């Protein structure tokens, strides 16, 4: 469960995030829409503990991020916008490295099955990541998140630059993770993807969460209209 209470971040005069209140329950996918600079990434960075909030608190499974930064990392997985990874290591080696940092020691077969689950073709598992496409690297990133078996998943524009097929596969994986009880927070520009995969959609503007909509009760066209009116 991800929870923000009056979460605020200011840089001098500028307010990046203004008193955000948000709860994402287990098994729920929440999509954050908004222009660049609306506060989406700031929100995610607060949950990751990379930014110290100026006020309020972010907590994961009722543990405050600011106070127990290292403990909360056990519950969360994170996929950045572009997953670059280490070009001199193979897909499996990259996955093994990040998993072992989180304290897991998987065998080669298990690692391979995580990569397959993330949609990476078997032939690529033992190739160096230097030769991967962006979509393939993103899949390794997803495998890293799956392998962590996290309670909360934070995604920063995960589908940007992916082709529609890869993007669709990605949605499938998110739904599966949610079904297994993961709380997902996803910042995105992709209105249609948000409508399709999310349970709830929030629209942010200048640090404020302006509106929260139930994804079932709105069509993609209506959502786009609402988005354009808001920002």
């Amino acid at each position: 469960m991800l929870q923000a209470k009056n979460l605020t971040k200011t840089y001098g005069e500028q307010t990046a995030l203004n008193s955000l209140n948000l709860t994402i329950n287990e098994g729920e996918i929440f999509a954050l829409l908004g222009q660049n600079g609306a506060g989406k990434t700031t929100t995610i960075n607060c949950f990751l503990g990379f930014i110290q909030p100026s006020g309020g608190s972010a907590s994961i499974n009722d543990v405050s991020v600011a106070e127990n930064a290292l403990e909360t990392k056990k519950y969360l997985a994170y996929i950045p916008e572009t997953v670059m990874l280490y070009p001199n290591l193979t897909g499996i080696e990259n996955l093994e490295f990040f998993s072992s940092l989180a304290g897991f020691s998987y065998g080669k077969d298990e690692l391979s099955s995580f990569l397959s689950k993330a949609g990476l073709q078997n032939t690529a598992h033992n190739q160096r990541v230097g030769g991967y496409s962006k979509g393939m690297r993103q899949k390794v990133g997803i495998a890293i998140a799956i392998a962590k078996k996290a309670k909360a998943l934070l995604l920063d524009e995960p589908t940007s630059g992916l082709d529609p097929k890869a993007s669709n596969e990605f949605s499938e994986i998110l739904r599966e993770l949610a079904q297994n009880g993961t709380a997902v927070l996803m910042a995105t520009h992709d209105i249609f993807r948000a409508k399709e995969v999310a349970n709830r959609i929030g629209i942010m503007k200048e640090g404020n969460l302006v509106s929260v909509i139930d994804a079932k009760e709105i069509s993609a066209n209506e959502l786009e209209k609402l988005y354009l009116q808001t920002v």
Partner: protein
Amino acid sequence: MKKIIANKEYTTLLRDKRFKLMGGLIAFLLLVALLGGFASYRSLKKERDLAQKEARETWLNQGEKNPHSAAHYGSFALRPKSEMSFFDFGVDSFTGTNVYLEAHRQNDPKFSAAQDSSSLIRFGEMTVAFVLQMLVPLLIIFLCFNSISQEKEDNTLKLMLSQGISMSLIAWGKIQGFSKALAWIIVPALLLTFILILIGTEGSLSADLLLRFALTLLAYAVYFFVFISLSVVISARAGSSRNALLSLLGIWVLACVILPKATTNIGASIFKAPSNFEFREAIHKDEENGIDGHNPSDKRFEALKKQVLAQYKVDSVEQLPVNFDAIAMQEGEKYSTMVYNKHFDRMENIYQNQNSVAAYSAILNPFMAVRNLSMGLAGSDYKTALAFQKYAEKYRYEMVETLNTHMRDFSKTGDWEKKADAGIYAKIPDFDFKNPSITSVLSQNWVALLALLIWVFMCIKMVSNLKNISLS
């Protein structure tokens, strides 16, 4: 956790073309410098040992002659090559190797290697120490400058941190990984150095030499640790990889090129040393007029005569049972040596002060610390050259004194014809100079030792303080 990061860093580095190419180049340079240095060490050592042996034989077999003539005939003292000098030439190429020992004159060591070379030698020689002190830091910088900044730019740092490890742990892991990869380049060269030391000493490795080698290893290990951790810390703090590289190259130029030259020049301009001509002139003046300027040599001669006549209770030198010429010469020798030592100590003091500016800069500059320590331990620094010069002068004085004393006792005043038995020459011992002990090397280089210690603590502190770097 640290080990996981270290292993990943090590694996990626070994697969990196940049590392293979530059590391291979440095390893090759080390090999060339080692073998070249050792070959020249061997031939110089052979030459000098042979020359010293020949000088000794000539001395012993000069035949019967007046003892003072023998003192004028003189002999040579050659500076033995230090066992580790092939590793670090230090100032050996510029210091004299050979002193002519004769009566009445304190000669400077002559015939430095630089005299036999073209003036290009001023631009430095390819020695192991040069590669380790100047080029390895450059290699470290090129390998480590983007160690963290690149991960920031690629978002992998965030990914790593989101797995629940701390920034300083990442940095320590990287330092460990880089050190391990670097060991592939450095350790073989150091092993070869050790083998060459064994060959050079023909297996009779002394505890002193072993300790010198161990301390040299330690000093370089600390030096590389400082550069690796500094590179990682700056990479973490810099805004971009480009900035990190520029800052690190700036530090390298400052520490390895500008500061060593600047501090040496500042030292030389604050503490002005007289020219060799002025130095010799001042000695000559003091010998003529007396050290206080009121006691000229003819007066001293008269006083000595009076004193000796009174001692033997006779009226003229002809009645003396001993050779007064020998007594007078020995007194003159004593006086000139005293004058020489006074001026020499003054010069030494000036040079000491000049060098101290550079030596104290070690506190700011680990390059100076490791440079001074390395050549001190290798026995190729200025202090070792100075110790040789002083030892040679003491040997010369004792040689002349022995001969003068012999002449005093076995002949009468004015008898320049009486020849001494050839056996007298063997009374002068072999010239047997030993390098200053390791304790004196360490006490002379306490600033360097302290500096390295301070740098280790500073680096540990800097790495541990990496918690709050900005990630956005």
